[in-house]
């Protein structure tokens, strides 16, 4: 059970590298960038843990993105993600190798896998962090996450158990630059799966169809809030997005009103975005929304209340009625493009 770890024995930073149908998850590259920083601060190696069937080419990619080592576990039974099988493989190796930190992207798979791994390894896990750092004096991972419905931030440590585990939401960290000249070691992890160990059977698996680009990857996003949720404003928002080539996202109440789908909800219980340009229209700027937009590079906020919180997150602010401002902006942009 939760017996304390012999801390000195534990060394190195691990990242779980998620792949789906052979394609690496972007959040895993984000984790490699973050893992690299943590490993450098601690002066240790960064290893990626890759599990799947026939996924060796991805191991090279992980090295290019910053891994010193890749633990590679391959088996036809590992093609489809299964919590228990993945947990067995990771935990077995972790008990041998004793990493001090294990970070995982908080994707659906990451959030399913991490708690099971952390429980088996008798260690704690801080979920959905927005910031990771090292307390160099105490050699501790310091994780920050929203708590209490996002109304406050909490800093959490795991002082006496190893590995220290955290998950980070997709889009919170930047994808590092790849460097194809980097070299690293690929270590094959032996896999032996007995049929009786397979408890969960996958009957069917279908990838959902996406309407183009995901909001997390969009270069430009126009945000729709309750202040721009009347039919007329919705049309303007759509047109602005069209002339800019932007994706439409928005606040949770607009999801609840079925104006936009949940896939494009921005914020704590939605997506973290990191576009070059974000234009929130009629969004008040509560913390639950703004935790999702702190990585936007340039923000132009439109809100009729000059004291709206959203302006604190904006570079340009327009205190005005979206119904009046939006058509004027659309017209000017069209002029530029003509």
């Amino acid at each position, binding site marked *: *059970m*939760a017996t304390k770890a012999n801390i000195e024995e534990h060394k190195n930073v691990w990242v779980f590298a998620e792949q*789906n149908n052979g394609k690496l998850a972007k959040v895993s590259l984000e984790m490699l960038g973050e893992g690299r920083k943590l490993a450098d601060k601690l002066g240790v190696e960064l290893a990626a843990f890759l599990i799947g069937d026939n996924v060796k080419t991805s191991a090279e990619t992980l090295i290019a993105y910053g891994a010193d080592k890749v633990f590679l576990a391959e088996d036809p039974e590992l093609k489809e993600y299964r*919590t*228990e099988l993945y947990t067995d493989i990771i935990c077995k190796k972790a008990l041998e190798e004793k990493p001090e930190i294990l970070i995982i992207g908080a994707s*659906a*798979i990451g959030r*399913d896998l991490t*708690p099971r791994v952390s*429980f088996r390894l008798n*260690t*704690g*896990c801080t*979920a*959905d962090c927005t910031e990771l750092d090292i307390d160099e004096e105490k050699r501790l991972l310091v994780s920050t996450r929203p*708590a*209490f*419905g996002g*109304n*406050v931030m*909490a*800093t*959490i*440590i*795991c*002082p*006496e158990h190893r590995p220290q585990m955290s998950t980070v939401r997709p889009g919170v960290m930047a994808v590092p630059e790849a460097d194809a000249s980097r070299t690293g070691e690929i270590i094959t992890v032996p896999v032996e799966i007995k049929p009786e160990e397979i*408890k*969960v*059977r*996958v*009957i069917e*698996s*279908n*990838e959902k169809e*996406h309407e183009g680009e995901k909001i997390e990857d969009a270069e*430009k996003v126009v945000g729709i809030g309750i202040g721009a949720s009347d039919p007329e404003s919705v049309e303007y928002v759509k047109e602005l997005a069209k002339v*800019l080539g932007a994706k439409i996202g928005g606040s949770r109440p607009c999801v609840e009103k079925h104006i936009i789908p949940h896939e494009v909800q921005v914020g704590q*219980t939605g997506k973290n975005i990191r576009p*070059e340009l974000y234009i929130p229209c009629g969004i008040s700027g509560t913390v639950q929304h703004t*935790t999702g937009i*702190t990585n936007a590079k340039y923000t*132009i*906020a439109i809100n009729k209340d*000059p004291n709206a919180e959203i*302006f*604190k997150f*904006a*570079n*340009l*602010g*327009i*205190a*005005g009625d979206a119904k*009046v*401002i939006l058509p*004027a902006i659309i*017209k*000017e*942009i069209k002029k530029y493009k003509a």
Partner: protein
Amino acid sequence: MKIIVTIKQVPNVTKVKWDADGSLIRAGLPTIINPVDKHAIEAALELKEKHGGEVIVISMGPGQVESALREALCMGADQAIQLTDRKFAGADTWATSYALGCAIKKIGDYDLVISGVEAMDGNTAQVGPQMAEFLGLPLLSYALGIESDGKKVQIQQKLGDFERKIEADFPALVTVEKEINEYRVTPMDKILEAFEKEIPVWEADDVDAELVHLGLKGSPTKLRKVFSPKIEKGKVQMLEGTPEEIARQVADKLNEKFLI
């Protein structure tokens, strides 16, 4: 079919208030059943209606969780068990899962454990998978639909960009999404019946939990500090003028930044 549902009582964080110097006022926040846990109860009730059996709800927390359990009885749960002991206090998800797991073992002989995917106060989504690990159960998470033939359970799983149909034999643990069902409005005739039921209170000793794994002491993670989210930007330039003038400035800026 014997189904155990874990429900958490949470403060209604949508009603959070702040005091004059910006700190959170925790006292007096109304508490509710974690919304998705009501869908977990509903899923269990529907399975019971089809296959017979019983639904037992459990909740760990201070004395006031009785009201959440009472509400679950009103919805139609057969039995409720309250886990209340000062030794449980201050638990992180590890210690919470351990304590709930011990209680589930104590109840024993179950076919299914159903939890919500995540609680709205912490949003960690860890307790379901961790209980599955403690109990050695196959985990079927993110259920959008659930079916059973009385021997095994099959769910429609929302796994990120994938939708899967997965199944496992009993006993198993399922975590449910709110899309799984519409939960029922409490039938009037059940209310009286529910209020007559006794809700046993179990302490750490009753579930054979080891003290070292409980509460604050048994929690691997520790809270270092809590602070109000910092506002990172704040150098906003407010645009002045007629809508047309403002629009021109916006377009100029976008052009300057190569955004159009």
